[in-house]
Structure formats: structure tokens, C-alpha cells
């Protein structure tokens, strides 16, 4: 019992420690990671799932944001005040995600929050920010429903999936024809939404889905699905595959190895160097919709310098589109704070709504009071000889309702 007594007292001490750590004390003693912390700073919360299943998406986004932060502070911050990005790890666990959001709002006293690349987390964090009157911009969740689900403090940096799916459908219909094969990951919201919107828009155009198939998140062997596709009497005009960045290289590789040579079309999940690295030559004749041409040789100046800076900082190319989105999100929020001239949440949100023609690495951002999902051009990329090349810059004719 002695031991248990001491354990209980240990628990008590821990409880005290927790409250000590999290009382509205300066973050330097134990709060999140403080990228820079001079006396007077503007605090922005960065909530990301740095560990757990979503870490391969959130880590690049956080890295992008940190890169932007360094540039901002190097350029003098906001009105002479340095900006501080307090990063906390949601661990891909809903309860922890909500905990860190509360901590950022309540203990760290951030004026605005960015982060997360998935709707689960964004929807767990969003309402808390909404309630506290703090603007929250998600760096990667692409569900166009988010703002309507959360409220007027919720913003997206990427376009909604309905927009890119519509572009994909229109582009492929015109270029390849009306018969499509559709495969998607049924265990992930992003891929499900993308496939749904694609199907809606494509059938609306008069296209036909000749075969529809699914796989489970975590599946790495697509041979059964491929054999099924190959057993189609006549091959479709193109293959629309909705996959997350971690899967797409594998999927394309295995499709090509099985002798399927037709065009493969998809969304911004394809925007990762893994596509070419994993699939190699097999990646040719792949088309996908994304935010901007992220290519160190052929991209815009902004893109080139972003890639350069990212390489210098982290030793490798941006892992996927989320790196650029994280970068843009950070830049956008700071820009909005500067324009608002205040750290009041409502004022910042209003400044975001007034954003027009903001030059992000991943495309130009336009918002309005009714559009918290940015109006953005969609870039269509074609992979040629292992390189991403610009196939088209498009705005969809018609966007499926969110």
C-alpha cells in the first residue's frame, strides 16, 4: 500500500504539474514549440497531427508554415512585432486534437489558428475556434462543406474538392472521352468526396462510369482491382483514381505493370514527388488537378524559390502539396493580421474575407464573405518523361454543390 500511496501522490504532483504547465504561463516554459519568442509577439496557433497516421500529410504542412514564419520574421514581422507560431501535436487522436485546440486558445492565447489537413481534425478544432471568436484556416482539409459546418471563423486555403473534381471531369471528358473507370479509397474522406464529386459532374456531362471499384485505406496490393478492370471487354477512355499521396505512386505503378496504359486522372493527392519516384516511367500519361505546378525547373518564380527554401531548410523536396499549402496558410494569416491592423478575431476574419488576388505558392487566393473556400484557378498537370508539366489552367464550368 505504501507503493500505491506514493503512486497516488505522484499522480497528484502530476496533476499540479499539468496545471502549472498550462496555466496562462508563457509558452517558453512548457507550452508548444516556440519558433521565436521575443518580448512582444503575435501568437498564432499551429495545430497539426505530427505523429500518428496523418503525420505524412501534416508534417509537410507544418514545415511549410514554419518556413513561412521564418521568412516573415526575417522580414521584420508585423508592424515590428515578431510572429510566434505555437505548434502542438494532435497525435491523430480526436480527443487530443480538441485538447490542443483548447490549449492554444485558452492557455497560449493565440489570436488565430492554422493547421490540420483532414476534416476530422478540422471539424474537431473548428467549433472551438468559432466559439472563441478566433479565425481558423485549415491548411489542407478540402471538404467544401467545412465553413457551413463550422461557421464564419472557418477558412480553407486549398480549393474545395468539388472544384477540382469538376475540373478533372470536364478536362477528361473533353480530352479522353465519355467512358471512365473509377477507383477510390473508401476509408478516407478526401478520396470519397473527390470520387463522389467527380462522379456527379462526369455523369452530368453525359459520361459513363463503366466500372466502379474501391479499396481500403492501408491496402497496398491492387492486383485484384486491376485484374477486374482488365477483364472489361473494352477498356475505358481513362481511369479516374482517387487516392491519398501515400498511395498514388503504388497505384499507378501497379496499374502500369499490369499493362494498363490508358490515361490515369486524379486530384491533388497526386501532387507529390513520390508519384514519379515510385512509379518511374509508369507515371507518364498521368493527369491530375492541383493548386500550382510545383516544379523546381518549370514552375513560377514563387514556386521555384519556395522549393529552394524548403530544400535548404529540410534537406529534401516538399513531400506533397501540403507543404506549399501550409506555407501559404501561414503567409495568408499574417497578411490578414497586418491588414486588419489588429489582433481581434473578428477583424482578422474580416480581413481574410477581403483577400483578393493573394499570391500564394499554391495558386492565387480570393475570398469573400460568402466564400470561405477560396476561389482559385485549378491547375491541370500532365506527367511527361517523369516531369510535371502544365496541361491546363482551368476554372470549372459548373461546380457540384458541396
Amino acid at each position: 500500500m505504501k507503493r500505491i500511496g506514493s503512486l497516488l501522490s505522484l499522480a497528484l504532483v502530476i496533476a499540479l504539474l499539468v496545471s502549472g504547465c498550462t496555466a496562462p504561463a508563457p509558452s517558453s516554459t512548457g507550452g508548444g514549440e516556440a519558433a521565436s519568442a521575443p518580448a512582444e509577439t503575435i501568437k498564432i496557433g499551429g495545430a497539426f497531427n505530427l505523429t500518428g497516421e496523418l503525420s505524412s500529410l501534416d508534417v509537410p504542412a507544418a514545415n511549410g508554415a514554419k518556413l513561412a514564419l521564418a521568412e516573415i520574421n526575417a522580414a521584420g514581422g508585423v508592424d515590428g512585432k515578431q510572429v510566434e507560431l505555437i505548434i502542438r501535436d494532435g497525435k491523430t487522436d480526436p480527443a487530443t486534437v480538441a485538447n490542443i485546440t483548447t490549449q492554444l486558445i485558452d492557455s497560449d492565447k493565440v489570436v488565430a489558428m492554422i493547421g490540420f489537413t483532414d476534416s476530422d481534425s478540422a471539424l474537431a478544432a473548428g467549433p472551438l475556434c468559432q466559439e472563441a471568436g478566433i479565425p481558423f484556416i485549415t491548411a489542407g482539409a478540402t471538404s467544401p462543406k467545412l465553413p457551413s459546418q463550422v461557421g464564419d471563423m472557418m477558412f480553407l486555403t486549398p480549393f474545395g474538392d468539388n472544384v477540382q473534381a469538376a475540373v478533372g471531369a470536364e478536362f477528361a471528358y473533353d480530352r479522353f472521352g465519355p467512358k471512365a473507370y473509377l477507383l477510390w479509397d473508401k476509408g478516407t474522406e478526401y478520396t470519397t468526396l473527390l470520387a463522389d464529386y467527380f462522379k456527379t459532374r462526369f455523369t452530368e456531362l453525359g459520361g459513363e462510369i463503366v466500372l466502379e471499384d474501391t479499396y481500403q485505406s492501408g491496402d497496398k496490393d491492387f492486383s485484384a482491382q486491376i485484374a477486374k478492370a482488365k477483364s472489361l471487354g473494352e477498356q475505358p477512355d481513362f481511369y479516374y483514381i482517387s487516392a491519398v499521396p501515400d498511395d498514388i505512386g503504388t497505384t499507378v505503378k501497379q496499374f502500369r505493370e499490369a499493362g494498363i496504359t490508358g490515361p490515369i486522372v486524379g486530384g491533388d493527392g497526386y501532387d507529390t514527388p513520390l508519384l514519379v519516384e515510385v512509379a518511374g516511367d509508369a507515371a507518364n500519361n498521368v493527369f491530375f488537378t492541383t493548386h500550382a505546378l510545383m516544379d523546381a525547373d518549370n514552375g513560377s518564380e514563387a514556386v521555384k524559390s519556395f522549393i529552394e527554401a524548403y530544400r535548404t531548410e529540410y534537406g529534401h523536396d516538399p513531400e506533397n502539396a501540403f507543404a506549399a499549402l501550409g506555407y501559404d496558410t501561414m503567409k495568408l494569416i499574417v497578411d490578414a493580421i497586418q491588414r486588419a491592423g489588429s489582433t481581434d478575431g473578428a477583424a482578422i476574419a474580416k480581413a481574410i474575407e477581403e483577400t483578393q488576388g493573394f499570391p500564394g505558392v499554391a495558386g492565387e487566393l480570393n475570398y469573400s464573405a460568402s466564400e470561405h473556400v477560396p476561389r482559385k484557378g485549378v491547375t491541370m498537370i500532365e506527367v511527361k518523361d517523369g516531369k510535371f508539366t502544365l496541361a491546363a489552367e482551368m476554372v470549372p464550368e459548373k461546380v457540384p454543390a458541396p
Partner: protein
Amino acid sequence: MDDSLSRPVSVAQPTTWQRYAGVATPLLLLLLVTLYIQGASSAYIQRVWIILGLDIILVASLNLFNGFTGVFSLGHVGFMAIGAYVSAILTLPLEKKAINLPDLPAWLAHIQLGFFPAILIGGLAATLVALAIGRPVLRLSGHYVAVATLAFLVIVRVILINATPYTRGSRTFSGTPAYTTVWWVYGWALVTIYVAWRVLRSPYGRAMLAQREDRAAARSVGVRVLRSRMWAFGISAFLTGVAGALWGHYILSFSPNAFYFAETFSIITMLVVGGMGSISGSVIGAILVVLLSEVLRNLEGGFSLGVVQIPPLYGMSQILMAILFIGILIFRREGLLGGREIDLTKLFVVDYWRSVFRRKEV
């Protein structure tokens, strides 16, 4: 302090008022701490307190099955999912239902229940499923039950993902009304602990423990092994379903991903740390793991130790918790309490204090 465990003691049996005092003390303490936290602490501490309460329900109800019957379920998070989804669907405001779940069958699309009935129905739904799968699965022996319940968890997930009209599939289920408060959570936590204690001190519980200790001997004195396991499974599933409902109305947005291995492992850690088969162990395990992992999480963002600056190491808290867990399994195989109970009644027995002080003198 050895004697405050339910080991044989030479002191007199506690009188009625001592027993009441033993029960009332922790309750009073709980009430005071909760009131204090509600009044004077940050929103974050309040949140941790609620999460702790939810975990206490989850661990105590898992203990009711795993600890009392000795067969291990790895599928309880599946019941949590059932509770969360069922109650969330039932309480979703009608206008949100029309938008979020447009394909619901008519009878579901036009009802909106209050929190309490929704919780009960969530729990009952979990119980029904438990009784349906329990009949075949609980016949199995030893860790094959663990295997089969793991399979159950996978199946629940697949069904959640595919039952799109009800669950939105893999898409986030949102719009759940924020009904859960600290009072709901601790109210149910007390109910859970009371039920677990009641079951333990009843013929049902004795049968569960007996078949855990020795299946053959239990059968020889008339214990029906499958039946006693079914009782445990059903009650435990109900409480886990309730916890899921409370969890759903607190976290508000969730998808099938929330109810999978990560959550399973986290609850099991608390159970094993506290000690299987001990109700107070469940509570202590939950407290320790929840608080410790919060502390570690707060430290992994990097901090300075005087001159040394510790860089951020995200993932360190999980690693340390896992190592702690292995350590406990190695050095205290039975968990901290090892199936015993902390009995505060003893604190009110004069002889007990006498014995404590006498020992000090020696």
C-alpha cells in the same frame, strides 16, 4: 498503509457509518475537485477533466468484462463506436439531418431525441450487438476471444464506412449537439463504478470470477461459463456504448477512424496499468495514464532545463508511455493494484490508524 487494501485485517469489521464515510469521502472529494475545476481552472483543464471522466467509464466498463471474466476483448471500441453513432444520429437536429444525412430512412429522418434517451438507446444498441456476437465468440477459449473480438472491431469499422446513409461513411460525422457536460460524464462514471461494484458483489460477479479462476471447478459447482460471460459482455457493452455516446456528444465530429486500434490500445493501457479485475485500479489507471500522457505531451514541444535546451520531439510521449507500459508489465505483472481494491472505509476505523502509528514507532 498495506491494510487499507481488502486483505485480511485483524481490526474490527467497519460499522455502518464508517462504511458510509468510506464511500462518501471520495464522492465529496470528487465533487469538490469538479466544482473547483469548473469554477477556477482554464478551459483546457476542464477539458482534461472531462476526458478523464470518459476514460474512467471506458476503462471501468472494459474491466467489467476483461478483468472480471479473464477473457480479453479487443473489440470494445466497436461498442463505443456503436454508442457514439447511434446516439448522434438520434439527437441530430432535424434540419441538420436533412443536410448531413439525406439518405436516412424516413422513420429515422423525422425523429430527434433528447440526450438521455439517446444515450440509453446507444448503450442498448451496443448491448444487442454484444449479445448477438457474444453467443458464438465467447465460447472460444483464452486469447482466441481476443482474436475474434479484434475481428469484430475490423468488421464494425468496415460497416461504419459502408453504411453511408447512416454514418456518412468515411466522411466526418458532424453537427452532433454538444450535450455532454462534466456532470453527465461524472454522473455516468459513478453509475458505471456502482454497477461494476454491484456486479462484483453479486452472484453474477462471483460466477464471472469463479470461471476466470478455474473454469472446470466453476462448472463443477454449477456455474454456466458462457452465460456468466454473456452477462459481463452485455453489461460492459452497454456502459461502453454509453461512454461512446457521451464521447460523441463531447468531441462532436468524428469518423470511423476514431474508433480503431489507437483508441483500443489507449484504453487497454489504462486497464492494465491500473490492474485488471480491480475497480479502483481502473480509476487509478485512467487517472495516471491520462494525466501522465498530457504532461508528457506538454513537454515534448521542447523546453529548457536551465542551460540545456530540449528540442521538440513529437512522438516522445507515446514512446515513453509505451515503455512505462512495458515496464509495468515486467515489474508489476498484475498492474498497480493487481486485482485488489482500495477501501477507504479503513480510514475511518480507529484501530487502523492505531496500527499505522504503532508500526511507525517500531
